[in-house]
């Protein structure tokens, strides 16, 4: 069970920080920082810079993304922004526009 769930129909305008994992199903505008995993589910809209240990995108993300572990773009996911992570997967059916920095 996820620690923090921003459910469908909820809109946050501002900054969300969390020590634990975060699941976004609704809308977030601003900034998102988590020490654990962030999961942007299908149908979610995030217009924010995201910093997390790992990030999975099944919804729509506009913003720069930094992950200490990995970033996964799921089928149907859409990411517009730069990615900084040591591991990145882009699934078939995902869309992505931006730069990748794998820290090599």
């Amino acid at each position: 069970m996820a620690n923090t769930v921003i459910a469908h129909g909820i809109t946050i305008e501002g900054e969300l920080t969390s020590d634990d994992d975060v699941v976004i199903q609704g809308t977030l505008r601003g900034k998102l920082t988590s020490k654990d995993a962030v999961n942007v589910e299908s149908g979610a809209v995030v217009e924010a810079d995201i910093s997390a240990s790992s990030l999975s995108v099944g919804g729509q993300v506009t913003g720069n993304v930094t992950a200490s572990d990995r970033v996964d773009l799921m089928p149907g996911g859409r990411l517009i922004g730069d990615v900084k992570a040591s591991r990145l997967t882009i699934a078939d059916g995902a869309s992505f526009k931006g730069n990748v920095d794998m820290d090599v």
Partner: protein
Amino acid sequence: MARASNSSTSHGGAVLGKGAHIRGRIAGDGDLRVEGSISGDVTLKGQLVVDGGAEIVADVQASSVIVEGAIEGDISATEAVTIRASARVSGAIRGSSISIEEGASVSGRIEADFELPPELGGKGGRS
């Protein structure tokens, strides 16, 4: 369709977990359970539950509000406001019905609309 019975997501409600903090505005149609902290206004069409240990520094508006933690700001509900024993509230409380348990600390105005019973001469009054 199978539904998980123990998952917080199964009833469609949002949860702000322990160790999570929001600085900004929150609006929504659904329910929200707060275990972390919020500084910024909260406007919901559903139920707001402020867990013990949670802290909100802002005005909150919801259909109903249950407070077990701390709120510094005005509470406004179209339905019931329930202040549990562990709660600390400073700010005005507005609701169609308000209950405060023994042990809760409340400072601020309380506004509730209700009909006075006929024996008190009321044709519906305000307090």
